[in-house]
């Protein structure tokens, strides 16, 4: 076991984590990035299709600018957002984000004459190199900036627990490099959780392979306050087949250089979604699509597992091919493009909720522990927002580190974690493999904590998860107890995080007694702005948990109604 000392441990190597590390480095503070995957090559940031134009950048009109803000607050967050934070974020994205990226070398797609290519319409966007693939060069640039700055990285390394100082503040991270099987204790003066928006808690999820709710689980065990854990987003049009393509989306966003974009058909071949016609203000029209699909499912014309279709058969092929990668999926299946449609299904996507932070510093309720990007509960995701968090958290951490503090991580907590991981590696019960347990958990969530929820299914899901925890987990069996590249061992660590986070999600879902955007309760179909325009705050108490309701300030945009059937609300 090695011990590494750094100023700040950054857990996560996506847009937020990388930008936080780069900014800390610029301030002379030493960060260490701990990444469960590879920095810039795992997690949700890689999937950024395009970048929304904020404010008055690139010829945006006053109306465009307002539309973008309205979209973010209504469609993207259903008003569960700190509107002042959103405003600060928008200004920063306009003034700092694009220039910083371009100066560093990111290629915002031009035409041959040199104009930056944008999507038309009420909300405009741009792409890094090509639409549908913007996250790849974006995150590749971040990876290289991190390498160029000489920032230390620990990759394919999972943070298994947070270490605390004698006064209860965050003091470090216990890590396992699952390629070498070595433990590392990272002692740090501050810890930033930047583990992202997505998790793989459902049979079909957009979260990448390594995601298992780690950030939330670690923070919760450390005693941090969470919020809005029930606010689960869904992709309505990801590939139904094969399973590995469950996070490959038929992008519904407006298209660069075209007046058209994707449409969706039900099992009878009837169009039920077309972004350009249905809701031009819904730039990432995920809730609009989801509500449309719910109606189709209820009418027996689609299933959440498939039986409906998405594609670009209404578009001019030359326009789709010029600036997007959208044809690749179809072509790889040998399907004519854009003439044919693909069968699609629902995948659980981002979680709007997460760790409760002070949005001026990104500090959690635990001293020394910060959250940036998707794992925070303050906003739903766009790559610009996650990056802004990286900026804010670096400032917040820098202010805290100005006051010297001695590390006092006790040896027993390190030894206990080391023993716990050793025991997991040598699990020798006669029960299922950890990978199987992960699938079992996802199946429970898919069946009972899916798109449409109700109290009796949610309670039954809690029972199922409890049974997995008490009856199956103790008998878990690992077939190979070697240390090197042991994904079974990693799965065993993940399972425990998944169980904890699933329980929090289910409890939170039971608590919010309304429907709002993508959160659909059959037993509470109304969007209830009188009682529930509020954060569903979750706090640890003793061995249990308790909820508090914290209303949002509404300084910029108002919903304009008190109660209304959620399926009839545009956003």
């Amino acid at each position, binding site marked *: 076991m090695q011990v590494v000392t750094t100023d700040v441990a950054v857990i996560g190597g996506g847009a937020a984590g990388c930008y936080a590390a780069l900014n800390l480095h610029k301030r002379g503070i030493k960060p260490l990035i701990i990444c469960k995957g590879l920095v810039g090559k795992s997690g949700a940031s890689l999937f950024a299709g395009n970048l929304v134009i904020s404010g008055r950048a690139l010829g945006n009109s006053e109306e465009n600018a307002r539309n973008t803000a309205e979209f973010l607050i209504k469609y993207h967050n259903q008003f569960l957002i700190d509107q002042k934070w959103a405003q600060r974020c928008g200004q920063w994205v306009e003034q700092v984000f694009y220039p910083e990226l371009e100066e560093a070398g990111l290629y915002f797609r031009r035409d041959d004459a040199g104009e930056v290519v944008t999507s038309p319409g009420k909300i405009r966007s741009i792409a890094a190199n090509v639409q549908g693939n913007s996250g790849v060069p974006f995150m590749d640039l971040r990876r290289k900036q991190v390498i160029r700055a000489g920032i230390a990285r620990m990759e394919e390394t999972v943070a298994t627990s947070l270490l605390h100082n004698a006064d209860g503040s965050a003091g470090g991270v216990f890590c396992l490099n699952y390629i070498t099987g070595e433990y590392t204790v990272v002692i740090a003066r501050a810890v930033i959780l930047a583990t992202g928006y997505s998790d793989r808690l459902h049979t079909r999820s957009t979260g990448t392979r390594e995601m298992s709710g780690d950030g939330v689980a670690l923070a919760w065990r450390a005693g941090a306050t969470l919020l809005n854990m029930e606010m689960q987003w869904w992709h309505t049009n990801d590939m139904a087949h094969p399973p590995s393509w469950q996070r490959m989306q038929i992008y519904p966003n407006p298209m660069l250089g075209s007046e058209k974009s994707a449409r969706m058909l039900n099992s009878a071949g009837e169009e039920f979604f077309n972004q350009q016609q249905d809701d031009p203000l819904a730039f990432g029209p995920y809730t609009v699509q989801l509500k449309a699909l719910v109606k189709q499912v209820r009418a027996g014309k689609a299933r959440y597992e498939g039986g409906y279709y998405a594609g670009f058969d209404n578009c001019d092929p030359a326009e789709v091919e010029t600036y997007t990668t959208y044809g690749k999926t179809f072509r790889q*299946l040998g399907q004519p493009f854009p003439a044919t449609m693909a069968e699609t299904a629902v995948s659980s996507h981002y979680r709007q909720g997460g760790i409760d932070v002070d949005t001026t510093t990104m500090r959690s309720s635990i001293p020394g522990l910060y959250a940036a990007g998707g794992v925070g509960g303050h906003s739903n995701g766009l790559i610009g927002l996650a990056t802004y968090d990286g900026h804010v958290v670096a400032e917040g951490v820098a202010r805290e580190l100005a006051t010297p503090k001695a590390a006092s991580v006790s040896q027993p907590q390190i030894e206990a974690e080391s023993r716990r991981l050793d025991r997991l590696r040598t699990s020798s019960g006669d029960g299922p493999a950890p990978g199987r347990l992960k699938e079992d958990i996802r199946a429970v969530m898919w069946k009972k904590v899916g798109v449409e929820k109700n109290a009796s299914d949610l309670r039954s899901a809690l029972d199922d998860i409890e049974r997995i925890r008490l009856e199956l987990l103790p008998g878990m069996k690992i077939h190979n107890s070697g240390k090197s*590249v042991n994904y079974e061992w990693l799965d065993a660590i993940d399972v425990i995080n998944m169980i904890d986070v699933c329980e929090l999600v289910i409890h939170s879902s039971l608590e919010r007694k309304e429907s709002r955007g993508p959160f659909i309760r059959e037993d509470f179909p109304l969007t209830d702005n009188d009682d529930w325009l509020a954060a569903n705050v979750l706090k640890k108490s003793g061995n249990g948990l308790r909820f508090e309701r914290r209303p949002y300030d509404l300084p910029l945009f108002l919903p304009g109604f008190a109660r209304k059937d959620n399926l009839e609300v545009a956003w």
Partner: protein
Amino acid sequence: MTSVSPVDAPVPTLPPVDGRRIGQAEQHDTLAARNSLLAPGELMTVRVRRSEVPAGGDVYQAFQVPYQQSMRVLDALNWIAENAAADLAFRWFCGSKMCGTCAVRMNGREVLACWEAVEPNMVIEPLRNLPVVRDLVVDRTRYEDKVASLQPWLERREPYAGFPEPLTHKEMKDASKALDCISCMCCYSACPVIGLGNLTDFAGPAPLVQLGQTALDPRNSPEKVRRSLELTGIFNCVSCYKCEEVCPASIPIVSRIIEPLKAKAAQLAPEMARHSFALRDIVASRGRVDPGELVLRVQGLRALGNLRRIWRLLVRGKINPIRTIFGRKTGAAAAAGRLLGNRVGKP
């Protein structure tokens, strides 16, 4: 026997193909065909190369895997891990051709596991040219270190002009192709020159594509590009196109990245291209290749230091000193000179 007159014979209609798919189209090995080889439920035989071999066992462990609709190689590996060998080690993150971490060799050819359709009989092996850590997981360090050493980032020739800066897609055309790279290492595994190990200092196709992202960017300083190119050994590339053939991102690696980089190297660091310049010079003046002169001009008198090799070259007729000294010109010299002459004379 019924005969069909040529007029009546059905003319097979081939889908439009680009260069890299020519052989596939002729054999009807199209993507559509490959995606419909199997029906759901049919069993495939998948043999996976393992690191830990059971006593008396094979390094290849065989599995029977049921086909699922549109199944990818990665789905087959996931099925095996979930149902037959929980300890099978293979790397993947996104499953969507973005992270580029799941590349393996399937039936001897580099593929991205999440992207390639399965086949009824598959042998799955780890990539070549990188050390295997366990089963299908390779150590990417060698590649990562090489990329970092090339410093593939911008050092601007002009101060940044503010967003959006003047830039056209025309100027970014080649760099833009390189930006599609997901560093999956398929090309690195397929490259025969990398396969030679330390015999050359060739950086390899993937690091060159990574470098091309900024070296072919007009915003970069030529001095910076020269320093990076000098570390690539780029003229060891034999333009065999294996890299292009396997690239899952369909990047024209040779024609749009390596060739333009070679041209840049010839211009910015001419000493690197002395072999190419000498070859062109010889062809322009003689109308043919003269290996003897080529060796002398590239290696100078050092060439005489290895008498055994010279003897071998003589015996095999690779070099012919008489012809080198006396057979100056062929009938093609005039035409060759006309075609190449205006460019001859650089170092």
